[in-house]
């Protein structure tokens, strides 16, 4: 069953200028529930643009993004924010935790926005910190954590609201080898055990090697889409 369906997605930046930039040129894509998918391609190929459009952060110039039988490209701004909060988890290259909040508060943050009860939040936080192996770091602020630990908190934050899928933009770009392996292990485990769909944009061969499906984009088009064993 598809979680995300991208239909004929085009994205043109500065369409009315003399030099319009065609970032995406008719992408058709279906991502099924529980996939562990990497979107790869050279810099400027359109990976991040595609991820942004799938995540409702940007709008396509043409085409539709169907999530949960709804075309999110027609949503108003506030509807999109609300939709993202409930359905999508984001993991960014630079971790992007809120610096003034502790690890625990960062993980709790989206649940607070969703007005979850304290008991619910407590239970989910404990579940996630155990999953990412940071039980002893929950009261630390981001600047007291290593890069790998911060990214694990970011993954826990992304999962806190039990989203339909996680979009991770170059999540390992700033991590050393050991942290990358640890992070991928955690995400793979969550993918297998909780059937959470992960979609990465990446250059990192270690991520590509662990992905079950690799979609290659070049010049705004899907040039290869293969399932790996």
């Amino acid at each position, binding site marked *: 069953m598809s979680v995300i369906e991208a239909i004929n997605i085009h994205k043109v930046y500065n369409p009315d200028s003399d030099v319009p930039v065609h970032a995406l040129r008719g992408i058709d894509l279906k991502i099924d529930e529980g996939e562990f998918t990497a979107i790869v391609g050279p810099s400027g190929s359109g990976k991040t643009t595609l991820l942004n459009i799938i995540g409702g952060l940007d709008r396509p110039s043409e085409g539709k993004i169907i999530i949960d039988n709804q075309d999110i490209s027609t949503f108003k701004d506030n509807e999109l*924010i609300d939709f993202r909060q409930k359905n999508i988890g984001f993991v960014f290259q630079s971790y*992007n935790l809120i610096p*003034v909040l502790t690890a625990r508060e960062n993980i709790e943050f989206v649940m*607070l*926005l969703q007005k979850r009860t304290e008991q619910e939040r407590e239970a989910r936080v404990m579940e996630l910190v155990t999953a990412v192996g940071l039980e002893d770091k929950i009261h630390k602020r981001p600047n007291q954590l290593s890069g790998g630990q911060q990214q694990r908190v970011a993954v826990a934050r992304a999962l806190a609201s039990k989203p339909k899928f996680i979009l991770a933009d170059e999540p390992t770009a700033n991590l050393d080898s050991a942290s990358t392996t640890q992070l991928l292990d955690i995400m793979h485990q969550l993918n297998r055990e909780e059937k959470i769909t992960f979609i990465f944009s990446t250059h990192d061969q270690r991520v590509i090697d662990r992905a079950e499906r690799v979609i290659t984009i070049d010049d705004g088009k899907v040039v290869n889409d293969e399932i790996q064993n």
Partner: protein
Amino acid sequence: MIWKLAWRNIFRNKRRTYITAASIALAVLTAASMRAIQKGAWDNMVDNVVKYYTGYAQIHANGYWEDKTIDLSFAYDEQVSSLATSIASIDQVVPRIESFALAAYGNKSNGTLVVGVDPIEEDNFTNLSDKVTQGAYLDPKDDGALVAEGLAEILNVGLGDTLTLLSQGYHGATAAGNYPIKGLVKFASPQLNRQMIYLSLDGASDFYDSQGLITSAAINLNSPDQLELTTSLLKAQLDPKTYEIKDYREMMPELMQAKELDIVSGYITLAILYLIIAFGIFGTILMMVKERTYEFGILLSIGMNRAKLGMTVWLETIFIGLLGACIGILISMPIVAWFSINPIRMTGEAATAYEKFGVEPIFPAAFDISIFLSQAFLVLIMTSILALYPIMTLQKLDPVQAMRA
């Protein structure tokens, strides 16, 4: 969470927060001190003037203040004399009968203001006996006169000389009499010093042929703050067809206009001060928005709506404003308290000029909590308005563009 986030965010860049809060604190300190000294100086001046002669309010026969004729006298009866008992805010009721008269001695004469007073009540109120420079103060049944020094000089009279007074008495009666000079008084105001003659109330009643009548009853209050209450109570108790109640503001409009002018000029100075501070705060907000555009993008991405994000940033600005205002108030309170106990004292010619008008040449600060609170409120309003900028910026912030910042 919004409150926690906002509170912690203000300490992210401690130095900037402290500098901004310090500039606000300095503004509040300056503004509160300026206002306190300005208010204190005016309160002192009004208090001096009021206690010098007029009182905080006066009761007259209806229409007296327009015509100021002795024909518009009224009975100093139990209802008026007992007002200090019936209205708790009134400290004292001071009866007077006054009109103009010609004073003559030998071949010299001069226009004078002859005031009949109850020597004890008047002394309690205006400390008239302290102004006696030669001779003695009046007794309640005295048939002598206290003459202002300047007037005595004009008429070339001294202690023991007999002054002839001539005027028109109550309802056209001829007022004439001889009064031995019992004492000389000195007023700082040259105008008063050239024209004042005091008689006892009984002596003046005989002179004006107005037994049992007075032209004014000056009211002294326990506290100046009770003026509105007192005048409204007086208006309720006394028949408006018979009496008029005038407070010192109505009786001294020039003084009030001068006060208003001074206050307005003070406000202009404060407005300029706050404008400068506002630019400082706005600079901080601009830097904060610029530095955190990326973070705002992230927060929008993960689902924090613009209203909540705007509220967080707004609260941060308000917290800095309040922090500065509180520090400013805490610093200014002891300073203002010190100047209220140890007023700035003028010296030299400036002091002489003030003394001429019967005003003590001091500038005490008014320790009035409303001054501090109003400054804090002003800062709150100012920062609230300035904090609209990040809210407006957030309304149109594109998360993707923000995360590229």
